[in-house]
């Protein structure tokens, strides 16, 4: 058992008081007491350090909150409602308020069936026309022909148009637009998981107040938007977020829809809203180019034909998509594929028309003759004889009012005058409330339109040019106002944004001082720091309401006190640090490593000002990592010891190669095309893994525990718990994970003769087993495990009869007994690494097969990084490079696990890996674990940058008598190093966050704001928050358990 590198050189530092009491018992007691004291000191200082991190988290959250409040666009919601009795303009001739004939305009239909096929993209509905010979029809082509057929065969009965959604293309936002007729502002984009009721005037509310019986079937988002508006007996909502389930919602809608269409039930209802989700779910789960999508579209085709057959003359049928889907079947952003939905209207009466021959056929592409989705609101309102909702900005759709011959210009002019007048009324109210005036152009358009209208009303012919002109001008006025509003609601609250940026900046300045310019033990400052920060925040929190109430500032009381509390606590915190200025140095980077860390952070931050660097972030991170690897190799060449040199160069080369290998896995964002090829899924139009990718989990299972083991063996630490945890538990967890993903693949491909339910139940069970192994058993093991050391005692050869001493403690020991402790050199690092392994297991389960390979490479690369840090003497010098490179690694692997800084790349379906339904708070947490798994793993490894192969130093109580001057507790030095590393890591993330925040704010009028800068800002902010929490709850908290465990064995 003789270790290879048996060196006594650093041994004398070990002085295990508890295990090796000195001769007298009294002294032993003193020692025990002393070590208890030291343990207590460590534990209390540890709590203090956590307090500092929590305070930093508070500063970040406050800063992000204030910026977000001003940045994410808000629109004033007016309470005004349109009413049947009041026309939008003063008129002598028109009579308002005839409910039987229609409110503002004669109604065309009594009843309506509004069918929403979620994510019905326009190109699904029109015949596939190849652009060149190599193009072939996909699964999503030509499978729902009914819409196009009817529109071509009987144009008077049906029309089909591209229906353009306003981003964000989430169902909740779209339903708001489709019923209120207003533009979405970004503020609501995040509330897809919990919709709130609409209090603006809207179509559903108008129908309800007109006494119509409304029925809603399908997606339950409607219920949260319009609570209480629907007939309770006939309405059947279904859970909308179970994207794995393609059929429950659709079958439910069919089951309840068709009985209502029977003639005996027709008078039970007035308007039915049916919302099918199967197409959307097929897209999310399989991507559009999959047989499941073809099947779903064919099913929808049959459903629509059946509805047509059951329809009567008085009923209008509307079929539409609320948004499209991108090439992977996801949505949320504003790419063309996501916004181009389809709209189809049908009636048996034949009242629709086209005003010219060119528009007779439905457009071949969504680029031709598109109509905004809000146009549905005035169209449907006027067709059903309802007043147009007050906030509407849409225009009546021409085809619906042009008459069967397409020449009813008088009708067109009338409906457009009504709509324009309502828009004008709304604009007037909004301007009054907001304190802004009309612009000249819309005024000119409006008066010109009124002129033409007046001259036309004298002519009395519906074909007169004046009528057409007034129609055109009203139309222009409507579209002009729409454009103005699009610009207007991009109005940012710059003051709040600046407050947020200043808070974030202040936070960074504090962390810079705290992490990089203090020479003394950080734990000594904790008390003073927290006290002053607390005083500051109390002061701020109490001054806030006073200022808020006195009306000096234009803020709510809570905002005011949060802002002042954050600001004042920052002043307090600074005063605590600067008070001991002798302990401070200028926080300038020094040496190549320092400058490299600084350069990586700052150049990446500067790069976020450019959309190119934001788009290509994954490549740039790889470039940085390779640079680091090369520099590590160079630095290793300088090491004096041959072992350091060889190991260092080996791990540097390994680090570069691993990064390269990981870069194979990628999911391209739309803007990277055509220079990028996705490999994360089976194809670029799919969101399932290819069959060969299912082998990756098995490869990971076979190799990853061995890789981890090799790093433990390198320091003779593969002892005791390590064998059980790495060799058995970790491997078992990975094996179950592999089986899980095979079952998943079997379900997708239908390979096994088992029912979907059986497969689902089995899968969920397996996933829960893995998660409980990682988090329940893993946490228990982490808290209670002994360090990874093996202690053996050997007697000298010349005394073979003597029994070996059982342990080194207690017994009177004979001379020349040799005690060998294996794993002594890396006792802190190997003990703490258990935590990283636990999380790695859970994150691997939550990732798709390709991502599992990436996470395994990440774990390997982290270990390799730690060895590089050790051989280059960077662990004990508190270099910034380790925590910063971990930050870069985390960001890099975020992209390698199938994510991009876009909303549509969020793998929502990961919430259903260990659960079959949505459960709060677990489902969002699972999605976070999937999305930010790489960053979380990297953050957990941050303490290791100072713990890996850290020499064991215990308190030397033999040489210094208890009464002499207080010597520093080695455990608090360790704690100080850990908090320094953690705050350096936060510094990297906070700088990235500040940069993306500032750029998003600065480029708020940029064309690419919503596509590129805003998602990147949101990602940076969420990552910062998540990692702050992870560091507080797990990484730094874990230090307590690992250090206490080491202390229990080796003394304090």
């Amino acid at each position: 058992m003789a270790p290879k590198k048996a060196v006594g050189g650093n041994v004398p530092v070990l002085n295990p008081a508890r295990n090796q009491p000195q001769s007298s018992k009294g002294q032993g007691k003193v020692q025990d007491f002393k070590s208890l004291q030291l343990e207590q000191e460590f534990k209390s200082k540890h709590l203090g350090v956590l307090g500092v991190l929590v305070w930093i988290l508070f500063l970040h959250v406050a800063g992000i909150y204030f910026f977000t409040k001003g940045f994410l666009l808000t629109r004033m919601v007016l309470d005004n409602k349109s009413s049947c009795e009041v026309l939008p303009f003063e008129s002598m001739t028109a009579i308002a308020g005839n409910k039987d004939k229609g409110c503002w305009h004669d109604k065309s239909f009594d009843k309506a069936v509004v069918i929403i096929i979620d994510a019905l993209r326009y190109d699904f509905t029109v015949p596939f026309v190849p652009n060149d010979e190599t193009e072939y029809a996909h699964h999503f082509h030509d499978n729902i022909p009914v819409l196009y057929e009817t529109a071509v065969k009987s144009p008077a009965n049906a029309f089909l148009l591209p229906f353009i959604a306003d981003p964000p293309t989430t169902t909740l936002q779209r339903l708001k637009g489709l019923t209120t007729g207003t533009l979405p502002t970004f503020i609501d984009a995040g509330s897809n998981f919990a919709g709130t009721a609409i209090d603006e005037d809207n179509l559903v509310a108008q129908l309800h107040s007109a006494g119509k019986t409304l029925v809603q079937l399908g997606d339950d988002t409607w219920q949260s938007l319009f609570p209480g508006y629907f007939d309770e007996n006939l309405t059947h909502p279904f859970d909308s977020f179970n994207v794995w389930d393609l059929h429950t919602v659709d079958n439910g809608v069919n089951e309840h829809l068709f009985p209502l269409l029977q003639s005996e039930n027709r008078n039970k209802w007035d308007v039915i809203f049916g919302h099918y989700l199967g197409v959307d779910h097929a897209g999310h789960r399989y991507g559009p180019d999959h047989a499941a999508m073809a099947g779903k579209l064919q099913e929808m085709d049959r459903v629509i034909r059946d509805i047509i057959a059951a329809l009567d003359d008085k009923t209008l049928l509307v079929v539409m998509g609320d948004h499209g889907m991108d090439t992977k079947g996801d949505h949320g952003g504003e790419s063309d594929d996501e916004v181009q939905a389809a709209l189809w209207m049908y009636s048996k009466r034949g009242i629709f028309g086209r005003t010219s021959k060119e528009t007779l056929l439905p457009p071949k592409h969504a680029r031709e003759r598109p109509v905004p989705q809000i146009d549905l609101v005035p169209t449907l309102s006027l067709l059903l004889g309802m007043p147009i909702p007050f906030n509407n900005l849409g225009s009546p759709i021409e085809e619906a009012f042009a008459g069967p011959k397409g020449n009813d210009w008088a009708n067109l002019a009338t409906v457009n005058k009504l709509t324009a007048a309502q828009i004008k009324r709304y604009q007037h109210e909004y301007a009054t409330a907001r304190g802004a005036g009309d612009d000249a152009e819309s005024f000119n358009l409006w008066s010109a339109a009124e002129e033409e209208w007046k001259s036309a009303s004298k002519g009395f012919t519906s074909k007169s040019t004046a009528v057409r002109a007034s129609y055109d001008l009203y139309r222009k006025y409507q579209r002009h106002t729409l454009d103005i509003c699009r610009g207007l609601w991009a109005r940012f609250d710059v003051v709040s944004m600046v407050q947020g940026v200043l808070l974030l900046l202040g936070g960074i300045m504090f962390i810079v001082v705290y992490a990089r310019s203090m020479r003394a033990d950080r734990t000594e400052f904790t008390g003073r720091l927290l006290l002053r920060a607390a005083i500051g925040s109390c002061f701020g929190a109490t001054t806030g309401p006073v200022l808020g109430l006195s009306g000096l500032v234009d803020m709510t009381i809570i905002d005011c006190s949060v802002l002042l509390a954050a600001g004042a606590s920052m002043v307090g915190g600074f005063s605590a640090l600067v008070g001991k200025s002798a302990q401070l140095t200028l926080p300038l980077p020094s040496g190549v490593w320092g400058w490299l860390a600084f350069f990586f952070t700052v150049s990446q931050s500067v790069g976020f000002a450019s959309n190119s660097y934001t788009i290509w972030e994954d490549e740039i991170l790889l470039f940085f990592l390779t640079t680091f690897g090369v520099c590590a190799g160079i630095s290793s060449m300088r090491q004096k010891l041959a072992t350091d040199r060889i190991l260092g160069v080996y791990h540097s080369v390994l680090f570069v190669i691993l990064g390269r290998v990981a870069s194979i896995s990628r999911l391209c964002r739309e803007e990277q095309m055509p220079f990028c090829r996705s490999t994360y899924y089976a194809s670029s139009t799919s969101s399932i893994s290819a069959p060969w990718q299912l082998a990756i989990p098995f490869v990971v299972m076979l190799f990853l525990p061995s890789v981890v083991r090799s790093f433990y063996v390198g320091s003779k630490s593969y002892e005791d718990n390590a064998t059980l945890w790495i060799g058995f538990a970790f491997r078992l967890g990975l094996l179950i994970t592999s089986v899980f993903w095979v079952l998943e693949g079997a379900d997708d491909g239908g390979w096994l003769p088992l029912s979907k339910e059986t497969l689902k139940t089995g899968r969920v069970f397996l996933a829960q087993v893995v998660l409980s192994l990682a988090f329940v058993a893993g946490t228990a093991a982490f808290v209670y495990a002994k360090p990874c050391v093996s202690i053996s005692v050997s007697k000298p050869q010349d005394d073979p009869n003597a029994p070996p001493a059982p342990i080194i403690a207690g017994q009177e020991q004979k001379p020349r007994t040799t005690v060998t402790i294996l794993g002594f050199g890396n006792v802190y690092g190997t003990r703490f690494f258990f935590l990283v392994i636990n999380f790695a297991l859970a994150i691997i389960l939550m990732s798709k097969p390709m991502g599992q390979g990436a996470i395994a490479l990440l774990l390997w690369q982290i270990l390799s990084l730690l060895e590089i840090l050790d051989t280059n003497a960077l662990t004990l010098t508190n270099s910034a490079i380790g925590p910063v490179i971990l930050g870069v690694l985390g960001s890099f692997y975020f992209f390698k696990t199938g994510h991009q800084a876009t909303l549509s790349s969020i793998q929502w379906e990961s919430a259903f890996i260990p659960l079959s339904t949505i459960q709060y708070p677990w489902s969002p947490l699972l999605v976070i674990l999937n999305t930010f798994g790489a960053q979380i793993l990297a953050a957990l490894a941050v303490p290791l940058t100072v713990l890996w192969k850290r020499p064991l130093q215990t308190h030397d109580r033999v040489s210094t008598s208890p009464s002499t001057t207080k010597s520093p507790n080695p455990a608090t030095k360790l704690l100080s190093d850990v908090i320094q590393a953690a705050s350096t890591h936060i510094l990297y993330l906070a700088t990235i966050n500040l940069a993306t925040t500032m750029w998003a704010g600065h480029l708020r009028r940029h064309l690419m704001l919503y596509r590129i800068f805003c998602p990147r800002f949101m990602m940076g902010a969420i990552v910062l928050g998540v990692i702050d929490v992870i560091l507080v709850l797990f990484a730094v908290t874990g230090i307590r358990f690992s250090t206490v465990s080491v202390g229990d064995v080796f003394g304090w």
Partner: protein
Amino acid sequence: MASPSTFISAVNPPSAPSQPPVEKPSPPPVNILPSQLAQTYSYVHPTILLTLGATRFNALVEDPVSELLNDLPWLALLQLSYVILCLPPAGSLASDSSSNEKSQRSTSGITRPGKGPRRKHSGKNEWAGIWARLMPAFLSVALTFLIATPVIAVLLVLFAHMALLSSSGLTYVHGIDASLWKEVWGFARPADAVWGGAFGTVLGAWFGAIPIPLDWDRPWQAFPITILAGAYMGYVVGTLVSRTPLLYGKRIQFTPGQDEEEEKTN
């Protein structure tokens, strides 16, 4: 082993007090030869390089590989004339007594080109002198091609250019002294015109990668072009700047005050 119970550590921490290997003094930084011609040409040479680069730039964007291939002999010639005119050949440096032995050991198979002048009979044989000057130059070119062998087409010519820029000077001045090259790979050479040029080439190539992802849609935003341009500019800046008294003789520090820190941890 005197103490009754010995704790044996399994790991040898980097700071363990084992005796560091005896470091032999590294070759000192070199100056440009003092002659008027050398001094002048040392400024003319970078100018020629940049001018040539600028004039051939459009052709480079058109067809990088063939252009680079065609330029290669000219670059080799330029570098050759530069090292011969401006730099002291290998072995002519003052501190060669120790490096001599070392190099003989490490380069057993290869005839060390720098031996000629050290034997102090260069006056007798004019040819020996010329030979002594030409040999390291040819060797340096040959060696740089050797370094550049592994990869294909674009990479090959790119590497060939970069290798010619960076290591022709180093090989000419220092030969193939193993300790020197260890220092080169550790980027631990003191700054002088030779090392400055080599380091500048590498750094310039690194920075040359930066404009590639930008969406300016320029034809030159392609893989080898910007990197090569960066390498050339880096070389020129490196040779010129590292000669200045401000930088001359300075070394790159990875960790500040490393010795001080090591003492602390021991």
